């Protein structure tokens, strides 16, 4: 075939012998790579750096809240900390981490040679560092970073200084990156499965990611639209969010939360998927109720588009609206409950061992459910009038986000790390990491329930003295939890450098295509599709 002569010399320098080929040498490997494992690694490393940065900002928050009075930061800077903490955690830490998992594991679990659109895959990642450079650069601008909360409510956000257009465009870039990444994942799952891998044979992690990717494609563009309207309201004279011109500040909230609520499931569904892989492995028993898990995930995704106004019960919606959103929100407890019960039933009469991934998965089930319970309490409108915008909400969402999404991610890292690196991590240190994290995270966030119920508003740099004690406890937990993550960094580094050789199966209860390839997984896998039972 004469085609080779017309191809780009650089790109295809190694094409013809790619069957036995490893990565290119040098750093440019990481910049030019189209390999799903490389890109997965990039995502994971990036997200960990963002976790440290976002965590550092959170520790700034906890430092100022250590005791009443202002000691360390000015109120405006405090608001910048809160806003940037959330933006970085949500879009920089949690989401890219789960996309990293998708990149590494989707092709391995469905028996595909790579992602369906490898160049696009590279771009999906390589927009992120640029987007975050733009976002973080606002800290150094006149007037500082955005300070209106991660929810960017108009008209407050329009009072922001130089940061506003930078933050908006950073969000656009992240949005483009997420949508491209999600399209790639959908296409890979729909089009790249090994023969015999029917949809209902796919591991649950694949299902949760398929549905997550759908949520991303549907929700992110709406967010892009919302921030575009902010931009034009500020700079081009439109009045979407200005009553004087017939608009409504609440319109922004509707559009934001139409994105924002699916967004929280975007952050949790991949962790559901990870936990659904981990629990059967260590219970040595197949996942209970696989099909109902799939349907439950799909129902959650569907419901997530019709509950958004539960974040806005206090904006003065008509009664019918409040009731509608209360009922739909409560309904989400049903499919989520199905998942929780299925996990418990998977453990039931298993033969359980408690390696670090399993410990994290168990903590996930318990602590996420706690967060779900407080979510359900928030859904009850009469009491949400009291809870709204207090630390009770902060406690709720950190339970679902930190002990939910993040713990799911930890479970996944420990679970697949031997597959990625070929080495076992240090189990003893892993257990230390687990216990330290679990204890401190509860010291950190449980007291926030009390603070909220007792009346402490969120997003305040200072508080009345009756809130002093629990705040100090919470701050202690925060520092403990933060420092514990340095242990995590150490464990992962150690494991990358060496350690006990991992077998292909790694765990004796493991099941699935990813465990049929050697550890570490070779640079190219499944170039000829595997046979699926």
């Amino acid at each position, binding site marked *: 075939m004469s085609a080779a002569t017309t191809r780009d010399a650089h790109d295809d320098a190694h094409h013809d012998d790619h069957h036995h080929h490893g990565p290119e040498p040098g750093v440019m490997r990481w910049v030019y790579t189209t390999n799903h494992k490389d890109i997965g690694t990039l995502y994971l490393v990036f997200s960990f750096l963002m976790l440290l940065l976002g965590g550092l900002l959170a520790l700034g928050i906890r430092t100022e809240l250590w005791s009443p009075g202002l000691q360390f930061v000015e109120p405006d800077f405090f608001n910048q900390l809160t806003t940037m903490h959330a933006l970085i955690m949500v879009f920089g830490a949690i989401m890219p981490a789960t996309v990293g998992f998708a990149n590494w594991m989707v092709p391995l679990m469905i028996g595909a040679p*790579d992602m369906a659109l490898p160049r696009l895959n590279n771009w999906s990642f390589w927009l992120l560092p640029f987007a975050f450079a733009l976002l973080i650069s606002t800290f150094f601008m006149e007037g500082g970073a955005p300070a209106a909360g991660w929810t960017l409510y108009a008209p407050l956000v329009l009072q922001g200084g130089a940061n506003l257009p930078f933050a908006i465009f950073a969000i656009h870039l992240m949005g483009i990156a997420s949508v491209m990444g999600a399209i790639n994942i959908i296409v890979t799952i729909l089009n790249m499965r090994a023969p015999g891998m029917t949809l209902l044979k796919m591991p649950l992690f694949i299902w949760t990611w398929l549905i997550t990717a759908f949520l991303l494609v549907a929700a992110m563009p709406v967010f892009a639209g919302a921030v575009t309207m902010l931009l034009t309201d500020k700079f081009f004279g439109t009045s979407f969010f200005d009553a*004087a011109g017939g*608009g409504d500040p609440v319109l922004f909230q509707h559009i934001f939360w139409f994105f924002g609520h699916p967004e929280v499931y975007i952050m949790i569904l991949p962790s559901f998927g990870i936990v659904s892989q981990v629990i059967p492995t260590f219970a040595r028993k197949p996942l209970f109720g696989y099909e109902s898990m799939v349907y439950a995930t799909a129902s959650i995704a569907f419901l997530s588009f019709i509950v958004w106004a539960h974040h806005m019960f206090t904006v003065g919606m008509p009664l019918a609206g409040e009731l509608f959103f209360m009922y739909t929100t409560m309904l989400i407890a049903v499919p989520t409950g199905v998942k929780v019960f299925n996990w418990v039933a998977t453990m039931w009469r298993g033969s359980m061992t408690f390696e670090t991934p399993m410990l994290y998965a168990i903590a996930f089930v318990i602590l996420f459910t706690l967060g779900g319970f407080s979510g359900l309490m928030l859904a009850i409108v009469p009491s949400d009038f009291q809870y709204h915008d207090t630390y009770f909400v902060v406690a709720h969402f950190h339970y679902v986000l930190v002990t939910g999404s993040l713990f799911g991610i930890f479970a996944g890292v420990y679970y697949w790390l031997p597959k990625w690196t070929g080495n076992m991590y240090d189990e003893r240190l892993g257990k230390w990491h687990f216990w330290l994290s679990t204890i401190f995270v509860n010291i950190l966030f449980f007291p926030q329930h009390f603070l909220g119920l007792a009346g402490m508003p969120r997003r305040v740099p200072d508080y009345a003295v009756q809130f002093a004690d629990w705040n100090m406890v919470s701050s202690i937990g925060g520092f403990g939890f933060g420092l514990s993550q340095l242990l995590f960094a150490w464990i992962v580094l150690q494991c990358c450098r060496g350690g006990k050789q991992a077998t292909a199966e790694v765990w004796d209860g493991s099941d699935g295509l990813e465990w049929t390839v050697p550890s570490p997984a070779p640079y190219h896998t499944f170039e000829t599709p595997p046979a699926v039972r």
Partner: protein
Amino acid sequence: MAEAQYYVPHGTRWPIMGSIGLTALVGGFAALLNGASVASLVMVLGFVILVAMMFLWFGQVVRESESRIYNDQVDRSFRWGMGWFIFSEVCFFGAFFGALFYARVYSVPWLGGEGTGVATNLFLWPSFDSVWPTNGPAALGGAYQVMGAWGIPALNTIILLSSGGTVTWAHWGIIKDNRPQFVWGLLLTVVLGFLFVGLQAYEYYEAYAHLNLKLSTGIYGSTFFMLTGFHGAHVTIGAIMLTVVMLRGMRGHFDSKNHFAFEAAAWYWHFVDVVWLGLFIFVYWL
């Protein structure tokens, strides 16, 4: 014809180039909005990089496609990819349509005292009657005239709908390997497309010069220009895509079995068409 193996390119320079270009573009624009006029240079530079990147990236994909190293599975990937991309665009427009509906169904009536808005109207905007279109209780932007539906917009509807027909005619051409029909069909479509954009531009000129209808004309001006503006931008992009496809067709690319690039552009064109129908009905007509 196609290789058995799924084509996985090894290494690519275009994405990082695209990131740099895009970042310079939006970063420059942001700085410009903050009043730093030198930033427009950065912006232009970014735009140039971005366009160059697209030429190079797409050029390479075209060469790969023409050298038939993509198999049917790769083709399916592209199809799914384009489909979901269009879906994401639909959602983007959804946000703006949502804003329009919200304003028309909720916020404007509330300001006028309907439903829960009694006190709002009584205390804050006592003289405001809710009628659509409106530039709000404070009459932002001053007196203006409404853009009628049955002039240029109706003409544009006919133009865009016929372009949907011509693009289908072009499709029939390539399916029959009738290249002249393919190219002529595309040419007609592209001409109609640019005609549409031209008329739209003229309409904007009219609005600004004679109707005092501007972006700053309250919620009506905001929704009108943002919706039609983003739509117009998409028509332009679609027309460019079709132009590229046409040029490729003139060079002898595509045959009755292999013409996904054309189909992708055509899908996009139909999507733009459907959005327009929504616009015509909800922005101009009702």
